[in-house]
């Protein structure tokens, strides 16, 4: 079984951001292959390195980054949704003249197009959507 995951809601606002992470982690621990995790709508906010949650709370972005490193997980943030919400990688920050150091994409995440979501639907046996 090969899964793709779609995350449509932002961290600390909506349960589906946490549920998506917990589901993905549990699937990986059971040996299920995850083709890709795609972040869309406010879900792109899971991929900013600038979040600083209280120390006694979970760090959702860091959790994803660590999962990506451990399992070589492909975490893709939608470029159109990301630009609206101020999530940039180095290339995008430069292209839009946002200055040095403006890139805030978190480690393990990459920014790409919506085609990656369609491909995730085609390539996986199931696309699991976490949203409102």
């Amino acid at each position, binding site marked *: 079984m090969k899964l793709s995951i*779609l995350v*449509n809601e932002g961290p600390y606002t909506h349960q589906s951001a946490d549920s998506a992470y917990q589901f993905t982690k549990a699937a990986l621990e059971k040996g299920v292959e995850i083709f890709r995790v795609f972040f*869309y*709508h406010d879900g792109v906010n899971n991929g900013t390195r600038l979040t600083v949650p209280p120390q006694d709370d979970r760090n959702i972005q860091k959790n994803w980054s660590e999962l990506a490193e451990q399992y070589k997980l492909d975490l893709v943030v939608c470029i*159109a*949704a990301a630009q609206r919400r101020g999530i940039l990688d180095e290339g995008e920050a430069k292209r839009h003249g946002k200055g040095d150091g403006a890139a805030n994409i978190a480690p393990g995440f990459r920014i790409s*197009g*919506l*085609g990656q*979501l*369609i*491909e995730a*639907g*085609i*390539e996986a046996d199931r*696309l699991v*959507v976490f*949203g*409102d």
Partner: protein
Amino acid sequence: MSQVKKFLYVNRKAPYGTIYALESLEVVLIGAAFDQDVSLAFIDDGVFQLAKGQDTKGLGVKNFSPTYRALGDYGVTKLYVEKEALAERGLSEDDLMPVTYEDENDGFAEKPSLIFVDRAEMARVMAEQDVILSF
């Protein structure tokens, strides 16, 4: 990626107030380039996305409703609309904008894209799909 899958985009939210409808449409337009078997479903408040005469001037938000009428040009020709969702909101089929496509297999005759189905039929449409994206 030579295989063709059945993709269904389920639209459940009103067109304005949240960004789901607009960003759903953006996926549909990009996805059209992948030559998959695409359908759209409109249920719950999603039926308002197809309402006739949308005017967003007072909102200061772009009126993106004309895009639905262009879907036929992208090869997206099956828009399933749930009858109960319309009725529960006091809407009839006449309150929706006409969405049509030109059938290239039938001399480019103009045909309606909106398919009105009841809740049970919508469930069957969903059951036939390979990939369902819910917005």
